[in-house]
């Protein structure tokens, strides 16, 4: 095999790409990003659990929850309030995590 193809990484890469697009002002990507951030908030706030959080982004939700639960707990539950400051924070968390990942 020429290189290792990791689907988990690929998914995180695409999410990072969506965050980047949202930060650059492309609002069409904001709903996808907001959805994951809101779901993470609901999970750490106890409004949702392992059995009913959204399956398609579950790994990113659990990753974010594990990285900084308190931050997501205190975040607004209205996605309209999510802005570049929040996107940048999430982007930094994931970028830092990716640099430490060793599959």
């Amino acid at each position, binding site marked *: 095999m020429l290189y290792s193809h990791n689907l988990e990484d690929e998914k995180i890469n695409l999410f990072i790409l969506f965050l980047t697009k949202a930060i650059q002002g492309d609002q069409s990507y904001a709903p996808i990003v907001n959805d994951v951030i809101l779901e993470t908030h609901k999970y750490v706030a106890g409004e949702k659990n392992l*059995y009913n959080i959204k399956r398609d982004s579950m790994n990113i939700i659990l990753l974010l929850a594990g990285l900084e639960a308190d931050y997501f707990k205190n975040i607004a539950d209205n996605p309209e309030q999510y802005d570049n400051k929040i996107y940048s924070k999430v982007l930094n968390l994931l970028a830092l995590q990716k640099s430490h990942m060793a599959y």
Partner: protein
Amino acid sequence: MQSKLLELHFSQLQFEWSKAKYNNYSDLRKKDYHTKLATIISAIEKENFQILNDTEITQRFHVIDFLFKSLEFLNNSTTSTIPFEIVYVLSEALKDWSSTDDYIIVTSLINNINGFSFDNSLMFNDFIYSDIELLYDVKFEKKLVQINLPLSLSRDYLANVVLYHELGHFIDRKFEITRVIYIEILNSVASGKLNTNEQAEILEYFPYLSDDKMFSWLKDNYNPFNLFSNHIAEYFCDLFASQYIKNCSNHYLEYITLNQKNYSITHPSTTNRVNFVEMFLKRTPSFLVEHFENITYKITGVNVENKLAEVDSKNFESLIPVEIQDGKELHGLFIYGWKVWLDPWDNIKKQSNIGFDLSQVKVYEILNNLIEKSIGNFIVKTEWKLAKSS
């Protein structure tokens, strides 16, 4: 530099598409999927790669990868290449877990005699579908479930019982069942509330959890490819398959793994896998099996239980197909097929009044033809009823 490499990547796809665009499919849903691929390729052809920034180039990289992966499976799922009958039966099983008809089972026939596997590259990454919709205004209502099987065994209905296990991998990833079992087992152990029998059972199936360092590492370092994740997924898929084909895949598994006594990083020992399925089938009280069943039900709303109807027949011994009554009997057909293969072949000779001995390869050919014909007849009958009622 990056844009030139994107040009190379897209040229490779265009070359592949120059042949694949003529694919014919018997399934209208695949035709529709194929048309969407054509729309995306046509849109990318109109783009000027020279003016794309790094983010945009990365997006195209992922889209072209998606298109390639789709073609890899669609090319082996055309009217002339797809193992239609086995795919039909797996689709029937899929309906138990996904009633919305959102998925199309496609196959890739590979040149490896043990090459049974589930490829989760397309269904797993939902974000790529969102990106394609935003970039090219193309929405995929149906997604591909990609199953690899050996080219030389594509019409072997005895060996292909293991495809139920591969379908289990799709269900597992769709609902992220392994991930929850992973967390719940580690939490149960850490709670200190398990009784001696429950603890012993966990250590029998996951022996490395007795190592405190390993336990802590697994708790802090989840990834879907570590041995604990892999082992849970394999046990789940064995359990999933046994709902439809009981212990039939164990016959094949025990043989091809030489009844492996030790676990590897990717798979538990075969003896443990066989025992796990036997506990489920015989309803032996088991903390782990109940844990798997409960978690699966809580996530999916579907019970892990017998989903087949046994076929009570002597037709195969008389060399005639079985008239299948419903989807549950389709699954039972494989159990009947395996029974005929494992029973003395004199039964066939006596029942069919043939005056000569049958070689093993003849029995193999006959049995596979009879299973295929039984499924085929059921499909025709079902389609006919549907056509009459509409």
